[in-house]
């Protein structure tokens, strides 16, 4: 089995190997000074048209659908907040996540979108402050699967074979082949980009919930949203199974089964409307 530190170094190197647009460095510097306005940052992102287009594609797919297309970064910044847009910019700058998901695992993009929509619906139901940040967690919770496919192709092929042969969860095959999970890999990248824990934790721990960890409510939401999408058969997360619900995560959210039923019905409507997929 590969060494964990070596794996991590290779994942972190993605950021430096692929060309990170200079704009990302400038934005990071601008944000760290703390004196710039959202409009100035939006203007800076807008200078890189390819990057801006990728970000807007994610924004329009995952957060507002086709109902209310967002056509400028500054509009996205107002609606979603700086941390969500910054995360999307960092992610979009290293990989075109929609193309990468479609290429490596047909259906993973639809699963990610569905999980984003479910997380958003759950967060709104619980009246959390930042449903968009929960939706972001849903959207990117499986980003590590694409990173594994791209960075460790031989191991990815072994993982896929194992899932096909045993009918197990992809995450169990990841542990057996790599010794780490897609959640670890996603966390490494997000931490390398210095994103705040409120963004990183729900993605890092969506399949390994602990009630005393910070941002447990958001993590529980992404965990449940993933399960609901799998139960509804929306997209394809890499296997045909459903992981067991974490009882502590469920207890923390204080939802009822009728809440679950309504969120599932909302997912059906969004699939029918073409918002997911």
């Amino acid at each position, binding site marked *: 089995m590969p060494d964990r530190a070596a794996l991590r170094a290779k994942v972190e190197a993605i950021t430096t190997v692929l060309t990170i647009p200079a704009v990302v460095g400038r934005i990071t510097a601008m944000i760290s000074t703390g004196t710039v306005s959202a409009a100035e940052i939006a203007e800076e992102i807008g200078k890189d048209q390819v990057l801006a287009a990728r970000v807007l594609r994610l924004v329009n797919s995952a957060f507002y659908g086709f109902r209310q297309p967002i056509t400028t970064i500054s509009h996205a910044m107002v609606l979603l907040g700086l941390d969500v847009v910054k995360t999307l910019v960092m992610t979009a700058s290293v990989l075109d996540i929609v193309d990468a998901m479609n290429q490596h695992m047909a259906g993973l993009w639809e699963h990610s979108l569905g999980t984003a929509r479910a997380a958003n619906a759950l967060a709104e139901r619980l009246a959390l402050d930042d449903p968009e940040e929960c939706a972001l967690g849903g959207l990117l919770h499986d980003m590590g699967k694409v990173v594994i496919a791209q960075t460790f192709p031989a191991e990815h092929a072994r993982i896929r074979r194992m899932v096909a042969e045993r009918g197990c969860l992809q995450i169990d095959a990841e542990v057996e082949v790599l010794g780490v999970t897609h959640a670890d890999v996603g966390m490494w990248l997000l931490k390398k980009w210095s994103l705040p824990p409120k963004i990183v934790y729900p993605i890092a721990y969506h399949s390994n919930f602990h009630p005393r960890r910070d941002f447990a409510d958001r993590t529980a939401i992404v965990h449940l949203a993933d399960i609901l999408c799998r139960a509804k058969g929306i997209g394809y997360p890499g296997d045909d199974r*459903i992981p067991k619900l974490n009882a502590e995560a469920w207890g923390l959210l204080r939802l009822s089964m009728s809440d679950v039923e309504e969120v599932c019905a909302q997912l059906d409507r969004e699939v029918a409307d073409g918002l997911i997929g």
Partner: protein
Amino acid sequence: MPRIPLSEARPGQRLSRPAATRAGVIMVQAGTELTPALIERLRFLGIDTVSVHGEVGGAGRPIEEVLAAIDARFAGHEGDPWMMALKEIVVRQAREQGQAGGHA
């Protein structure tokens, strides 16, 4: 329902979802029948996948098949009351959709 690469789209197929650009702007509404000229225009706009009506995926699948897939997904959770309650919801919604005209 199946989402297919535009290169595999054939004239005569009908869009099951709107065809949109990467920025999410709808170019062609759901229900539109694909023609050779329309496929060419979508390609020109950089749209690389479309959703069409067909037998793969949820829509149009016989309800028995949908229910069998749900059974398979929930296999191993029979002793878990919460998971069984979720399964009941999913089965009920699948049946309702089957009656509403086959759209999953």
